[in-house]
């Protein structure tokens, strides 16, 4: 995973609440292998509707943008990590929103995408900002947890564990393997404490 420390890029406003993962990537595209690239499917159906704010993604001034700004409950719904693959493959490294679906936010961090949490008022300011709407770059500083744009600066929240993972580009699995002896000890005592926890070995049909 590529570490993320600072980011300076265009930020596309998506003034919608409850952008669920079905909208981020409709289920019918999820049969494809990741190697095909998922960016083309990002917000696919919303981008068919010229009146939808999601169409801003296709405007020239947001070409190469790496930051998405949305309302509350971004990424709610299905646990599909493909929603993050679509964002990441499109080029996004950060989503700013006033709340996130828990599973989405966790999936995002595992793919090096920063879920930056701001207050609803701050989200409204970012969404309404003229400079951002014209494609002016936004500066994200992860160590300081700050979003800077024009003459403004807004603080964002991020779980400290996720922050460390993003800054270092860490992978969970390598870390877990280093706890092999703790896992083995747990298994020994757990077999005594919860003998009922295993599936019955020879199930009656």
């Amino acid at each position: 995973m590529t570490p993320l420390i600072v980011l300076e890029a265009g930020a596309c406003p998506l003034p919608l609440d409850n952008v669920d993962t079905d909208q981020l990537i409709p289920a019918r595209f999820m049969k494809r292998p990741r190697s095909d690239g998922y960016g083309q499917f990002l917000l696919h159906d919303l981008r068919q509707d010229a009146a939808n704010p999601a169409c801003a993604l296709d405007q020239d001034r947001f070409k190469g943008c790496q930051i998405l700004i949305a309302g509350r409950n971004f990424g709610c719904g299905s646990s599909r990590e493909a929603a993050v693959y679509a964002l990441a493959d499109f080029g996004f490294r950060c989503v700013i929103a006033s709340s996130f679906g828990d599973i989405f936010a966790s999936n995002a961090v595992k793919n090096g995408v920063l879920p930056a949490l701001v207050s609803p008022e701050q989200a409204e300011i970012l969404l309404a900002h003229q400079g951002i709407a014209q494609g002016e770059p936004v500066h994200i500083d992860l160590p300081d947890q700050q979003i800077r744009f024009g003459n403004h600066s807004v603080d964002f929240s991020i779980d400290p564990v996720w922050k460390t993972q993003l800054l270092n580009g860490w992978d969970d699995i390598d870390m877990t393997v280093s706890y092999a002896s703790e896992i083995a000890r747990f298994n020994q005592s757990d077999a005594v404490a919860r003998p009922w926890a295993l599936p019955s070995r020879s199930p009656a049909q």
Partner: protein
Amino acid sequence: MTERAGSLSSRPKTLIGKIWDAHVIVDREDGQSLLWVDRHLLHEGSFHAFDQLARRQARLHRPDLTFGIADHYVPTRNRDTLAPEIKRMVDQLSDNCASHDVTLFGLDDPRQGIVHVTIPAQGLTLPGNIMVCGDSHTSTHGAFGAYAFGIGASEVAHVMMTQTIWQKRPRAMRVTVEGLLPEGTSAKDIALHLIATIGADGAQGHAVEYAGSTIRALSMEGRLTLCNLSIEAGARLGLIAPDDTTFAFLRGKPFAPKDEAFEAAVRAWRSLRSDDRAVFDREVTIDAGSLAPTLTWGTTPEQALPITATTPDPATILDPARARSISDALDYMGLAPNQRLDSISIDRVFIGSCTNSRIEDLRAAAAILEGHRAKVPGLVSPGSTSVKLQAEAEGLDRIFTGAGLEWVDAGCSMCVGMNGDLVPAGERCASTTNRNFKGRQGPGSRTHLMSPVMVAAAALTGRLTDVRTLARGSRP
């Protein structure tokens, strides 16, 4: 008795805390804990994680605790001739399970069905288990007092390789529901009312315990429906303390403990309840007696109202973001402000999904439909092949087909449309499912979520209908 700081063992604990503590392998200083996973459930969509394993040349660590189920992509008709891209998804799961020695409930297995329907029915969901699956509705299994939650593909790969998962301890919320459920209401109405009250992000960061007399009186089917919808309130998971209803359901189930082992397990499971003075981070109470049949009118499950209500008017909403969201939802759904919900015509119905496709759901819908014809077409997809066989033994299939609805095989079907069971663009569907998101049931589809009896009532009249008016004898 006074509480002493530092004497952790005597501190009252929530059920959520008890299960958590029993699974902690390592507590890191930064607040992350490594937890043991008792059951890992896979489906066709797990191919991303198997691909990650292949890239690392890793093996699946505990195949004995891992189960594969074909549900998301499986056809509900003509299973002998699978479309090539569906066949590829189903075969991919079979091949991956075979090469990693994972037990598979495949297409030709009577145990096949929706993962969250068939796994509990097999006795694989046990009180006090931690269970994960790459599917957000894994919260369903909380009905048994299991700590069960959905995860993404990277976490699926992590569990495959280590049988553990890193988690941050969630905040605990208790939702207490007291009183008798009124005529025409069920667990679905409790859930939709809760989500409308606290919001689709109202329980974010929380694990929810459902408690109170109404919950105790629910059947296992009702509890599964309620816990299933926890994720639609944004919760990490929802669970219910196991009791005699739970134990009676589990006794004799294929994978549940047997004989003396079962009795010993029940003795252990009885301690899986929140202590009397346990403290929750948030408490919500619901008076069951105040509930009416509830359904969604918009494009998020929080946009739900009693059938007796009218659609909201964005012009009267002060919060600009909320007004925008309501206006956008009305527009997508083809509805006007201040429209009576029971005046809205529908084009089709769907009865199925991990939310409401169990035998009790089918019986409830059939009781409304019996002897009548539906005014609109519709699909009934039982939650598993076993549920299908049981329903057929009870003659429910003939009630559905007699009403003009299609009776098909088990799978996720029209809830998510991955197998091609779609609601055509612009059509309005009364559905027993869990998500009314834009395009969820197909591009341009319009979904109204409600209970099985409310879907049956809508089928009979061709519009959203208060089932209580039918129950009083004024059927069409």
